[in-house]
């Protein structure tokens, strides 16, 4: 009897669900063409991984032989044993590595089987949701010391270095690196900014990131638009390279300034969630100098603030409420002629349903002071397997290792990798990306240990106040400088 009642209730729940589903559609259920494509892709990947697993069961000798002939981007990965320094000698040792869920997890996981095969060691990957990543890594570095390799955003990594939580790497390179491991091959700006902190090499660049200018190629190449621009300004319409050119082009493409503009706005950017300072850096402003002194309250800072205020006139009013998704979608819906963003915008533009698919070009952010982001790899000071941890970092960041990570959106950090024609052809971003790395100097997160996020908030607050008119640019910069001085002074880093 009771069973019947329970069954009736379950039936009622199922019926409710079906009714809801029915009311949602009133007709068919389907799988989109896009998903069909990706499902085939997944099947292929699964088949490949099954094949790989089957192959792994064969004898070690043939496995090594096989891994020696991996070809990526037309290049044979001939040095996976790191000049003979990996020959299964780490058998019995285990590395634990935290990674951010998603692309980082995929990229690191992709090199693990090959590394395990070459080194004999076991690698345990722990994936952590993005929002909580730094907190959990920090928790481990302070308390339980289970992690051997630390992959982290650069400013965070520098904080760990000051706190003595990650190991200086020069000694590691000198003692354990294979003879062909060439640090001079890393893009110079990237290696120095990412790697060195307080005079010590504390990280090896793993994932570079820089803000780029995305522009509507179709509009910039349109003859009638070009003629109208020529008529209005007496100069040729081209992708802006300077801040002044950018402001002028943005005005031209803004409906309120130019009724004939094919789009509503000349410019957009994400301004929510701590992104206004990125615009400040892109326009030529700075945060701190190499001695951790505030470096924003100067002529460059004032000019940068004024440029932001000028650009604001060509941007949608709601841009201060636009986060990553909203701003990207705004651009992908074809509402703006230009947008500055991290490289991830490219995927949104090229997605099915995007109004700007195949209509977008990429260039260095005008003014040539693009904000630099990125991740580095370090060794945890408390790691019990430092030598093995280094070998893993060396493996991931070696010339061959770089080619293994690219397909998981981890762009190359080595100049020689960008020179490979197949790599160049694999992404339309690489040309602008590589050029941008030469100019980028200011990190997205204020590079002061312990209080980086606090100082980022200070900058955000003052820039937003200047943007809403409650402060002049000069007042905002002065306030920013004062708070920076107090906060950094309170750290007592000189002691």
């Amino acid at each position, binding site marked *: 009897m009771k069973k019947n009642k329970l069954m009736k209730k379950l039936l009622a729940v199922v019926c409710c669900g079906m009714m*809801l589903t029915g009311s949602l559609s009133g007709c068919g259920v389907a*799988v989109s063409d*896009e*998903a069909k494509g990706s499902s085939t892709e*997944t099947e292929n990947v699964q088949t490949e991984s099954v094949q790989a697993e089957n192959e792994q069961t064969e004898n070690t000798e043939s496995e090594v032989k096989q891994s020696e002939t991996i070809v990526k981007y037309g290049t044979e990965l001939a040095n996976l044993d790191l000049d003979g320094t990996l020959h299964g000698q780490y058998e019995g040792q285990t590395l634990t590595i935290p990674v951010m869920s998603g*692309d980082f997890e995929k990229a690191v996981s992709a090199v693990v089987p090959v590394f395990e095969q070459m080194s004999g060691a076991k690698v345990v990957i722990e994936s952590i949701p993005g929002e909580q990543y730094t907190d959990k890594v920090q928790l481990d570095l302070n308390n339980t010391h289970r992690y051997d390799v630390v992959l982290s955003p650069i400013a965070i990594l520098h904080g760990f270095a000051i706190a003595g939580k990650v190991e200086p790497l020069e000694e590691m390179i000198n003692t354990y690196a294979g003879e062909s491991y060439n640090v001079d091959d890393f893009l110079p700006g990237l290696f120095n900014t990412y790697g060195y902190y307080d005079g010590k090499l504390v990280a090896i660049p793993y994932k570079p990131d820089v803000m780029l200018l995305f522009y509507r190629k179709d509009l910039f190449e349109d003859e009638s638009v070009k003629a109208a621009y020529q008529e209005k300004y007496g100069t040729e319409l081209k992708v802006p390279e300077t801040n002044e050119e950018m402001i002028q082009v943005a005005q031209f493409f803004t409906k309120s300034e130019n009724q004939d503009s094919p789009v509503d706005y000349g410019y957009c950017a994400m301004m929510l969630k701590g992104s206004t300072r990125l615009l400040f850096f892109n326009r030529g402003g700075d945060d701190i100098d190499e001695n951790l002194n505030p470096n924003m309250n100067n002529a460059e800072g004032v000019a940068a603030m004024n440029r932001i205020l000028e650009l604001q006139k060509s941007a949608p009013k709601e841009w201060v409420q636009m986060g*990553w998704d909203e701003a990207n979608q705004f651009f992908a819906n074809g509402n703006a002629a230009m947008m500055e963003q991290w490289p991830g915008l490219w995927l949104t533009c090229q*997605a099915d*349903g995007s109004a700007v698919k195949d209509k977008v070009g990429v260039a260095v952010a005008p003014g040539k002071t693009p904000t630099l982001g990125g991740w580095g790899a370090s060794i945890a000071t408390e790691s019990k397997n430092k030598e093995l941890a280094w070998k893993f970092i060396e493996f991931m960041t070696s010339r061959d290792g770089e080619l293994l990570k690219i397909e998981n959106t981890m762009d190359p950090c080595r100049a020689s990798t960008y020179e490979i024609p197949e790599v160049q052809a694999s992404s339309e971003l690489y040309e602008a990306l590589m050029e941008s790395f030469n100019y980028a100097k200011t990190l997205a997160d204020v590079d002061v240990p312990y209080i980086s996020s606090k100082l980022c908030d200070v900058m955000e607050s003052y820039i937003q106040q200047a943007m809403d008119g409650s402060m002049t640019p000069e007042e905002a910069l002065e306030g920013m400088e004062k708070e920076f001085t107090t906060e950094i002074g309170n750290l007592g880093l000189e002691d």
Partner: protein
Amino acid sequence: MKKKRMIQSVGLAVMFLILGILFVFPLYWTVLTSFKTSAQVFVEKPILFMDTLYLDNYIEIFQKSHVLTFFKNSLLTAGGTTLLSLLLASMAGFGLCRYGFKGKKALQNSILIIRMIPALVYTIPYYIIYNKMHLLDTLTGLTMSYISFALPMAIWLALSFFLDIPQEIYESAEIDGCSEFKMYTRIALPLVKAGLAVIAILVFVGAWNEFGLALVLQSSDAKKTLPIGIASMVQTHKDTPSGSLAAAGVLAMIPAVILSMATQKYIVKGTMAGAVKG
């Protein structure tokens, strides 16, 4: 008079309709989003009705993430927490109801005080202790921590339900020679069935949705729970996969909805218990 009543009824109906929409619309929107393609999610004119339901998001979460493993882990931890909490709380509640002893009040109050301490305060100590006990990244460890959080509330609720049973029933049972254990299993438990259902729902939903502890204590994909799995779908500097998140959210709703519907009768009884004394 009749007109006044009618106006009141219509007013109430409108108010309930508005409240209903406020509660139901987010659920409807989540279910709807779970059936949209990525191109349909972010559009300037929101799509409120759809001609075709696309299963892309469900296919994606089943193919590309370990959603079934996360679901199973959530079910095991929330189910285990619920069963063990019910057992321990009903015993503790019965004991506190039936026996008088020195320090009883203090014990009852201390249970309440434990409940008032935010869970976040325990997280780091748990992490350090579990690391030493090799309980990190285990479902047993996670279930144990959930039980410790659920018990204070469960004991207090159980105690209040046992106190509602008239004393005479216990006395009659004693006269008939019923042992304390039999009194607990044969007399008291059947009488507080409705209350236990309420406790079960509250404990289950609490454990099912818990995020902070699971985030810190679990690390491998094989041992993660659904809230952590869902959070892992969001990446920095990449578009939020709203459709997949919605699909995972719909899956996450199912057990709690089934449990609530199946025990609806008891919930009404349980929440009413204690309302009228005597």
